[in-house]
């Protein structure tokens, strides 16, 4: 096993701990909150900050380990920023549609033009 400078290990460790904490908080919120739309907010924590910290730690660690700039972990951030919105928007649409069909309370009505309402 090769070694990296100590300060790199400290920074990587801090980033990993931060990411672990944020993922844990997001899962806690996802379990605890009552309403589906309220529950959609905490997972975004893990999707953004949790993954950013891990990929930054990976970039730093592997760059120092191989002593040349390795940027491929960026692909994770870029790919997540493209795929996560698609799933989230579709799930929000699904939730609205199904709640309107089921007639649940606290569901906003279908958007219409302001002048014909």
């Amino acid at each position: 096993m090769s070694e990296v400078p100590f300060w790199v290990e400290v920074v990587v460790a801090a980033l990993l701990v931060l990411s672990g904490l944020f993922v844990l908080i997001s899962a806690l919120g996802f379990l605890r909150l009552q309403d589906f739309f309220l529950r959609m907010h905490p997972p975004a924590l893990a999707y953004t900050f949790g993954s950013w910290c891990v990929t930054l730690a990976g970039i730093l660690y592997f760059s120092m380990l191989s002593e040349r700039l390795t940027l491929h972990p960026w692909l994770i951030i870029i790919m997540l920023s493209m795929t996560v919105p698609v799933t989230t928007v579709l799930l929000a649409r699904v939730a609205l549609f199904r709640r309107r069909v089921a007639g649940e309370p606290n569901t906003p009505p279908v958007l219409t033009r302001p002048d014909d309402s």
Partner: protein
Amino acid sequence: MSPFLYWSIRFALGCYALASVLVLHRLIRGPRAQDRVFALDLLYFHAMLVMLVLGIRNQSDVYFEGALLIALFGFVSSLAMAKFILRGEVIE
């Protein structure tokens, strides 16, 4: 590898495991199908994070491909399931 980094990797992996258990609880409890699809998407995401951290622990670059593949499979599968519970058809 210093014990400092070793234990922080342990801590991060433990956090992901605990978070997966919490999300699994939501997957079982529901209450509706969209909650379950979202929970499954999050489980995929946690698996991807675990792969990335394992790559740092074993100082190996190969885990990165695994993480990318898990993320892509998670995206496709949760998209298909969301589409299915929207209309009951995956391809219209």
